[in-house]
């Protein structure tokens, strides 16, 4: 069953979470029950494909073994090569599942949500390396974090230390009331976004484009904007479901979207669009890369280092979406935008060429919007599909 894909899914989740809500409203602890719910929900989600279920189990065992042994190792030593090896081994299943389709008819390794779970694994290893996670993590909690069902298929990508804080918190009845209220609010925002607005854009506009567009160019242009809006409402709606259900389970999963279409520039955009992903890449790819280069003093020019960091970040993000040409181009496109914007920002600091006022703010939003939409147009793969 696809998470949040049908009315039945919401209905079953509502029944499963009824005890959580009752416990929560009485100010009692409910995380043990939630763990049990997660097992049931996972069974429901993965019951349709046995192969997917097996892949998930094997993947989880692999990651848990890796994380547990790295934490154990880190208590004693801190070798570079072991750290690199652990990261590579953590990425390995994802990399194989992305490459698999090029070699075999059936994808034995892939399953719904593998890319999102990989983020959680790598993150744990990196934070252990940094000494942020020192103590051994109880197996049940580690599993609960990795397999937390509301966010399993497409995020938002949570951080372990944040998750743990929520997990251990004593929630009073009044605090839970607020969580429940926010959760329900989020879920209904999700319905509005995904099943009313997103659905309408797709059903009444994108599917009927050939009646609206009078030429090939018009067709592509309309598609570009409508697809961008559709993508946002669909994904933001999905994220709202995931966050809403998390809240009801007492876990404040991070936000994923913050009005991305009013971004002033491309940097601003990436602080508003798919935030849990871009922040992950910022913290675990960009920052690390910049620190590492600076520490080794290979390149002195801060600006160049920063640009190289962006290029690395967006190339990786592109590839992470898939090895298809459109995703790689999407990564290159955003890397380019970032580098250009970075140079522009520096230039403007010196020359004060672009003033800051209400008018320029509005113009900046409009310009950014069009560049962003063109990015999604690349992402959609429409350019590479023959015919319309």
């Amino acid at each position: 069953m696809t998470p949040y894909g049908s009315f039945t899914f919401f209905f079953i989740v509502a029944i499963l979470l009824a005890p959580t809500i009752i416990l929560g409203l009485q100010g009692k602890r409910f995380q043990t029950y939630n763990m049990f719910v997660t097992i049931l929900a996972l069974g429901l989600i993965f019951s349709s494909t046995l192969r997917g279920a097996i892949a998930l189990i094997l993947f989880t065992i692999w990651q848990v073994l890796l994380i547990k042994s790295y934490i154990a190792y880190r208590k004693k030593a801190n070798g570079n090569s072991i750290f690199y090896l652990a990261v590579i081994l953590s990425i390995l299943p994802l990399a194989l599942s992305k490459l698999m389709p090029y070699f075999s008819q059936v994808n034995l390794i892939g399953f719904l949500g593998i890319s999102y779970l990989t983020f959680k694994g790598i993150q744990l290893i990196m934070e252990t390396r940094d000494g942020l996670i020192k103590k051994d993590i109880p197996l049940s909690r580690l599993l609960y974090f990795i397999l937390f069902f509301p966010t399993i298929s497409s995020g938002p990508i949570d951080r372990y230390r944040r998750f743990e804080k929520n997990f251990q918190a004593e929630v009073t009845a009044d605090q839970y009331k607020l969580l429940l209220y926010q959760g329900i609010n989020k879920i209904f925002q999700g319905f509005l976004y995904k099943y009313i607005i997103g659905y309408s854009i797709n059903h009444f506009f994108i599917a009927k484009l050939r009646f609206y567009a009078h030429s090939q160019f018009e067709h592509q242009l309309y598609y570009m904007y409508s697809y961008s809006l559709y993508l946002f409402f669909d994904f933001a709606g999905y994220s709202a479901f995931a966050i809403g259900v998390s809240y009801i389970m007492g876990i404040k999963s991070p936000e994923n979207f913050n009005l991305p279409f009013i971004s002033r520039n491309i940097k601003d955009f990436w602080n508003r669009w798919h935030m849990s992903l871009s922040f992950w890449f910022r913290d675990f790819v960009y920052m690390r890369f910049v620190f590492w280069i600076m520490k080794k003093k290979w390149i002195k020019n801060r600006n160049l280092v920063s640009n190289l960091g962006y290029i690395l970040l967006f190339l990786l993000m592109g590839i992470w979406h898939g090895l298809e040409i459109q995703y790689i181009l999407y990564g290159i496109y955003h890397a380019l935008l970032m580098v250009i914007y970075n140079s522009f920002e520096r230039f403007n600091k010196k020359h004060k060429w672009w003033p800051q006022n209400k008018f320029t703010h509005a113009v900046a939003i409009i310009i950014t919007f069009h560049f962003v939409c063109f990015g999604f147009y690349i992402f959609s793969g429409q350019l590479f599909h023959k015919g319309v």
Partner: protein
Amino acid sequence: MKKPLFSPIILALLVLLIVVLIPNKWIEGMIPKERINQAATELNPFMFQGKYVQQKMLENKHFLPIYGSSELARLDRFHPSNYFKVTGEEFTPFLIGRGGTESLIHLLNFSEHTNQLKGKKMVFVLSPQWFQPQGTDESHFVPNYSSLQGYDFAFNQKVNPTIKKEAIKRLLKFSPVKDDPFLSTIYQAEITNDPWMKRKASLVRPFAYAYRNLLVKKDLYYSLVGGKPHKREISHKVRDKSWGKLAIQAEKMGSRKSKNNQFCITNGQFNKIKKMVPSLKDSKKGASYGKSPEYDDFQLLLDVLKESGAQPLFISVPVNGKWYDYTGFPKEGRTAYYERIKKQIQSQGFQIADFSNHEYDPYFMKDTIHIGWKGWVYTDKAIKNFYEGKKVEEDLGRLN
């Protein structure tokens, strides 16, 4: 953050509860009686996929249901809906079908009403294009499949078990049935001896039944809302004319409206395909409608009609001969269909108006595949004879 406020969600749940629990009788009481008459030419897909309106229609002797597909929407002045309206016939044609409503879809719909079909006169318009080598496909089946009819079929005890099993095997090939966890379980249990499956099905059945009741209610709400009137021509110019005169009128109209091509296709339709026309030349070499799983699907439909005692008249629509020759579609591939389908219908003892010799009759067809203008005139005559219990004739008689 704001103060938690739960009254809206509680209110919403209450409204939902009322909508779901309100007795069906109350909703039926609110549906205006006129709805059935309006629905006759609305060609509303929700009505095709529903139950209530068709049930009321079948109860009423004054309706003559016409089942078919996309040709039904060619509502020109010769269309049965206009012709029998303005000539003051005692029956009103009631149209059921749109593009993609092929045998399996109609089969489910007929099964829904088996107990109402005894002695019921009806018309069924066939399209050669249903009989593709692969039969009907997802793109035709999915938009027309009705969950309500699918679920009712699962609980249907009236349809002959052998027919039911065969139909289920076919239905399980399509995603809306296959991917429906309740329905596919019950369907699979019907066609297997596996005790596990049977047990699973009996576990699922109460839930499926509850869901089915929800679908019944949904259909009532849809019937309450109704559809939009379909664009149609209402013209009195077809009144008090002999069939021959009508045919001449239809020819004149056809020639006026299809000037930009040599295939006797309407200008508008031809403009749509104009760019592709050169590339379609001889593109259908070796094609045939003579072999298709659709024949078996159609046989199931015939069996259900036979069992329920319905009195259908089948209209065998030809293709546009000039166009089909242009695309290189072989004559044998067409005649194989006409002959096979005729034999199949007649062997059940049903009547057929076979218009297959009109392939090259100008303006019999409105475009490449849809009957229109003169084709409707022939159809009108066949329907009139059929309704009056006379022998169905395939020609128009005297031309004056």
